[in-house]
């Protein structure tokens, strides 16, 4: 007889019957009854009314019955908290049972009963189980600490369970170690700044030893934990890598991916000229390729990650193109991902093969796949110049098939090819025009219209073609309407005599009949331009367009770095930072790759640079929704922006903006507590005039004032050496390196512009994207003389903090656009937060005390500053140079406690307590702030200042 019979009783009065059976004297009958209860529970019936009767069965020596009752408890305890107490006694008793299976079962179930009242009764049994002689019980108890922490974090901390858990990392049993690591990592995730894991070379060594012995899952916990460690130097990094590489041979794909994550991260610290670095690169390729023979879902995860790895280190898989060829029976999601990677790996060496494959795919039946394949052909043309001609002819062949969606995709990509290679392939226009009627998708129509407008002088019947579109103007999508407007204006400027009527028609359609503001405004601008100064109109509308860059869809570098740290996880599958899809992770510190080995060296690996420009990772074109997108829209782009898809829709940034990130940054003096509000209001009066007022908001005048007054200031503020921000190879020969400084209350961006191209550069301009603290150039970029080849010019750009504010990730990220006569270039850099520490940041003692108490403890973050050999006075002087003010000093039992305050340009106060023990080179720093996001960055400044 099987268990399925329990599902069949559905008579009326069933609950009543069950109640009787549960209270039966016969053990067998009892067990049968509990099984029936569980069966009802499984199919979703409410059997909570039987709670007391089921709990009565708990005291049994039958293991199966006990398990069933426990299962019932887990499900219903929450809805019956008062009755759940009844079970506590049995739990406590079971935790001392002779049989370790029962002890473990009890401790495992206890943690799953999420009833607050019960938790305190669980502490004693849990404490015993954590020290149990049987490893099976210990490993179960380790996980139980994480469960309990999830229900009542304070209790776990008060009871000292965290320390016991940390001790378990040194347990003799590998499975216990693995579960302890997993539990600690889980707890640490909800306490981003707690130094919970406290990884040091000794613990790392223990973990690496356990790694060899535990189960596959344990290995993953340990590897994921290792990935969050930051080795002290490249030697340590190498030795960890050496001990992790054997995991690449594990049969479980998840172990392999976690090992890849550790290696990708720690590799960053290895010098590139090291032999071992090359060896490691070679070792990574084969396991990645093997992942493609796993189950399709695992293949999908692997492919999404390979996509990241290929962008970060293209050299690893550059010879492995063939393995990404699509198989007929691959699921569609695998096919699409493979296609993406094929394009990324396409190079002059393999382009012939790739094209042959893509052409094959373009004749398949799956519409989405075919579309993507056609687009891929276009992207190859743009990426590998030598193949452009072949790509174009392939596309023409495909257009001849007359398959509707193939034709439309082909036209969209041909438009891009025209942008990349102007005046080269226009002979195909005639073929394109033949297919005008079959275009029914907005993107394809818009592309076709753009082509007609752009090459109006070579298309005899351009006016007829465009006129035909005009008939249904109001039914078109905005994209098409805008394109049509621009195209007809272009046509008019090229052939004014025959097309006057047409242009008037479209202008009136756009300005009078349309209620779309974009369209109307563009219409008016054209109208006015045409009516006031046709010559200027010609210059504006027919201006030469910047060439489009060779690669699109690259992930922005800082995001890429973060995603590399999340290899194998959902973030790497979505290609989004965890903060974008996990609730409550906003305050969590973003993971970063360790600092690159040899910081002076350029950011590209040398072998990529040598392999020719076609393979070099080119500059990122901001894709739709990218923050940089709205920079482009401001005024740097030519007015005939031919990429209407660049909409200022900011996905992630905007969400943060609304989600309260901004509030916490600005909140200090807008709606904050009185003690904080006093800061800004009272400061100018209290401070001596020579120190100048804070350039807090719109500090143009204040800045000037400061310039005079600030000369007498202690000039101790640390300025980092310049680093390369923009590589010449990514910016058509313009190299930019720079650093930030705060001199006498003025924030300055020191830039070195180097012209590595062959021609003279002029017309420099700079602009910042919105950023967390509203940094913006306070004046134009002063490059007055043209920059001739091989010349370097140093400029200091004063910055204000009155620009538009938007929270960035990381907080101190700054996205910059620099324009010259050649093109617009984008890069992002990070500034030390000390830039924003204002001169009047010394808080009154009383206010300090009150504020310290007022800020909740959750906002406190603790850090270690290691290897500082300064006494407290020297340290305090040094810090004062960077506007970190010591308010009070206390000496207790050989410890110096320094109380310090810092004020940011936007009025946020940061309070700090620094503990210095005589003879101990490690300082302990506690930082409290109402906007806890800034704490890690303030800590960075402390480190920088004290170490330099």
């Amino acid at each position, binding site marked *: 007889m099987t*268990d399925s019979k329990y599902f069949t009783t559905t008579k009326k009065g069933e609950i009543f019957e069950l109640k009787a059976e549960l209270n039966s004297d016969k053990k067998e009958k009892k067990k049968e009854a509990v*099984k029936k209860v569980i069966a009802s529970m499984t199919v979703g019936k409410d059997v909570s009314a039987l709670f007391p009767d089921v709990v009565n069965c708990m005291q049994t020596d039958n293991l199966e019955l006990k398990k069933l009752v426990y299962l019932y408890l887990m499900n219903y305890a929450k809805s019956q908290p008062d009755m759940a107490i009844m079970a506590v006694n049995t739990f406590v008793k079971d935790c001392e049972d002779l049989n370790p299976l029962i002890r473990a079962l009890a401790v495992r179930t206890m943690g799953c009963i999420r009833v607050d009242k019960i938790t305190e009764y669980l502490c004693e049994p849990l404490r015993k189980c954590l020290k149990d002689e049987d490893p099976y019980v210990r490993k179960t108890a380790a996980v139980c600490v994480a469960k309990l922490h999830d229900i009542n974090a304070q209790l776990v901390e008060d009871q000292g369970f965290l320390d016991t858990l940390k001790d378990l990392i040194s347990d003799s049993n590998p499975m216990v170690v693995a579960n302890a690591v997993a539990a600690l990592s889980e707890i640490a995730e909800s306490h981003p700044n707690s130094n919970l894991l406290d990884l040091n070379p000794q613990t790392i060594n223990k973990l690496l030893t356990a790694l060899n012995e*535990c189960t596959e899952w344990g290995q993953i916990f340990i590897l994921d934990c290792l990935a969050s460690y930051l080795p002290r130097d490249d030697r340590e990094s190498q030795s960890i890598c050496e001990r992790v590489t054997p995991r690449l041979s*594990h049969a479980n794909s998840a172990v392999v991916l976690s090992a890849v994550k550790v290696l990708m991260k720690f590799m960053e610290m290895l010098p590139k000229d090291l032999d071992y670095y090359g060896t490691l690169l070679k070792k990574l390729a084969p396991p990645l390729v093997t992942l493609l023979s796993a189950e399709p879902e695992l293949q999908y995860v692997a492919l999404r990650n390979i996509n990241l790895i290929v962008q970060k280190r293209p050299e690893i898989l550059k010879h492995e193109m063939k393995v990404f060829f699509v198989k007929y029976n691959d699921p569609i999601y695998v096919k699409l991902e493979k296609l993406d990677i094929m394009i990324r790996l396409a190079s002059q060496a393999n382009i012939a093969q790739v094209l042959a494959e893509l052409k094959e795919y373009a004749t398949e039946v799956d519409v989405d796949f075919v579309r993507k394949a056609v687009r891929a052909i276009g992207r190859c043309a743009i990426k590998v110049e030598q193949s452009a001609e072949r790509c174009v002819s392939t596309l023409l062949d495909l257009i001849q098939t007359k398959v509707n969606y193939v034709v439309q995709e082909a036209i969209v990509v041909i438009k891009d090819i025209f942008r990349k290679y102007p005046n080269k392939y226009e002979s195909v226009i005639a073929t394109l025009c033949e297919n005008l009627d079959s275009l029914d998708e907005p993107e394809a129509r818009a592309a076709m219209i753009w082509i007609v407008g752009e090459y109006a002088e070579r298309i005899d019947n351009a006016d007829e073609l465009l006129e035909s579109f005009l008939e249904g103007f109001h039914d078109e999508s905005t994209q098409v309407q805008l394109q049509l407007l621009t195209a007809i204006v272009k046509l008019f400027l090229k052939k004014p005599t025959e097309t006057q009527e047409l242009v008037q028609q479209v202008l009136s359609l756009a300005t009078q009949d349309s209620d779309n503001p974009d369209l109307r405004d563009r219409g008016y601008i054209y109208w006015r331009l045409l009516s006031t100064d046709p010559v200027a109109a010609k210059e504006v509308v027919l201006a030469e367009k910047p060439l489009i860059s060779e690669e699109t869809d690259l992930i922005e570098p800082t995001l890429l770095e973060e995603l590399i740290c999340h290899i194998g*996880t*959902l973030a790497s599958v979505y290609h989004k930072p965890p903060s974008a899809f*996990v609730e409550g992770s906003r305050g969590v510190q973003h993971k970063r790759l360790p600092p690159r080995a040899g910081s002076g060296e350029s950011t590209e690996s040398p072998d990529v640079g040598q392999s020719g420009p076609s393979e070099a990772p080119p500059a990122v074109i901001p894709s739709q929704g990218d923050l940089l997108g709205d920079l482009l829209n401001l005024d740097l782009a030519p007015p005939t922006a031919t990429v209407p898809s660049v909409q200022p829709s900011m996905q992630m940034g905007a969400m943060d903006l609304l989600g309260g990130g901004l509030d916490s940054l600005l909140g200090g003096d807008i709606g904050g507590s009185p003690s904080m509000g006093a800061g800004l209001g009272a400061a100018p009066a209290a401070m001596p005039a020579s120190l100048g007022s804070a350039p807090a908001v719109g500090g143009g005048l204040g800045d000037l004032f400061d310039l005079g007054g600030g000369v007498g200031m202690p000039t101790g503020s640390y300025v980092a050496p310049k680093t390369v921000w923009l590589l010449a190879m990514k910016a058509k020969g313009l190299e930019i390196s720079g650093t930030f400084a705060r001199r006498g209350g003025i924030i300055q961006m020191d830039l070195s512009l180097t012209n590595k191209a062959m021609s003279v550069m002029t017309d420099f301009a700079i602009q910042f994207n919105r950023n967390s603290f509203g940094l913006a150039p306070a004046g134009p970029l002063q490059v007055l003389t043209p920059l001739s080849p091989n010349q370097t010019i140093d400029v200091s750009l004063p910055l204000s903090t009155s620009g538009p504010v938007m929270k960035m990730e990381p907080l101190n990220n700054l996205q910059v656009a620099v324009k010259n006569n050649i093109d617009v270039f984008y890069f992002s850099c990070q500034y030390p937060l000390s830039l924003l520490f204002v001169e009047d940041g010394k808080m009154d003692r009383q206010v300090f005390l009150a504020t310290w108490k007022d800020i909740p403890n959750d906002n406190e973050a603790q850090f270690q500053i290691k290897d500082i050999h300064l006494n407290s006075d020297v340290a305090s002087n040094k810090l004062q140079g960077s506007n970190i003010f010591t308010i009070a000093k206390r000496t207790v039992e050989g410890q110096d406690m320094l109380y310090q305050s810092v004020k940011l340009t936007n009025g946020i106060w940061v309070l700090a307590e620094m503990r210095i023990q005589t003879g101990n080179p490690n300082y302990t720093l506690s930082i409290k702030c109402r906007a806890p996001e800034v704490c890690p960055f303030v800590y960075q400044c402390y480190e920088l200042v004290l170490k330099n």
Partner: protein
Amino acid sequence: MINDYIFILKAVCHTLTQTSSHQVLICRNYKGDVDMSEIDHFFTLLMQQEEEGLLCPVMSHGNVHFLWIKHSNLYLVATTNKNSNASLVYSFLYKLVEVFTEYFKELEEESIQDNFVVVYELLDELMDFGFPQTTDSKILQEYITQQGNKLEVAKTKVPTTVTNAVSWRSEGIRYKKNEVFIDVIESINVLVNANGSVMSSDIVGSIKLKTMLSGMPELRLGLNDRMLFALTGDKGKTTVTMEDVKFHQCVRLSRFESDRTISFIPPDGESELMSYRINTHVKPLIWIESVIEKFSHSRVEIMVKAKGQFKKQSVANNVEIRVPVPSDADSPKFKTSTGHAKYVPEKNLVVWSIKSFPGGKELLMRAHFCLPSVENHETEGRPPITVKFEIPYFTVSGIQVRYMKIIEKSGYQALPWVRYITQSGDYQLRTNT
């Protein structure tokens, strides 16, 4: 690395209304983060994506993410609202299928309902608070048994294996006759373009063990030098290089990394000791040339020539050559030089089977189909020709087992047996039409 729930669902098809819905067969909540009713969104998303033909193994609704796999008509779904380790989740779901299959022979709706108590027990033991625990079904079977345990202290001790460093083998195993069977199996994957050029080819090899040894034996596997050089990546001395080697949990990876010795304590019974991948240009062992001529509205003529490109002494067994035909074809006629051909209309295939195919031989098959005069408007894909075969006593890579040393403290004599076989893996040849 955390998931909240594991659900096992089934798809219910209402044949009358042509709609399908889903039903939760069993579920287990590991954490309290996600509400159980969220699973309803999974159904909706799944149906939506199925309609659009854009299925994806990860789906999300709000901040709940669903990671799922399908096993026959069951869906195994894990939910999470954190940045979980996705590869771990999928590995675990597949492990779940493996464990259930070993317990119940077949994982299907009935076996779950028939054994729901054991399923609950297993779910409890396999994962705790979202962390996978012991998943080795041989070890699990020692303390989670079908009949339900009576509490006799002796029987229900935790097997030490669960937490041991050797978590895959129990102590005290006894065999009358001590033997190990070693199978070396190589699968050939080939992708050939319509114009006859080999786009990609590789060998996926696997060494499988069937261990019937007493006690806790220490085994050391010796391979021929050619192979060992390949393992070390020493390209000077060999023409083959192993791209990647994967080992069973039991092989000491750090030992292999340092001196290339494959040493291990084997799991009992059947297991895969190692697998490897060789990326080499092997000549496709069975070469196919095909001419498929389609005369619209009248007929299709197919000519397939198969050539055995392997040693004359060897024979390929159970060869099956599957040739695609249009879905509206009918009235098949075949002519074959050897073997026999069969039309499988539900798969739109002609299957040409040849019992034994000696090396160096060339065989021929012709097929003729009629096409209806009214053309089928649906565009059809162009499935490739696929080939299945087995060649015993032969490996493409030349791998050989030189020795298998078996040392057990009781000092018994044990016999190793070795077999070699080469078979087709993913063997595809694209066609012109």
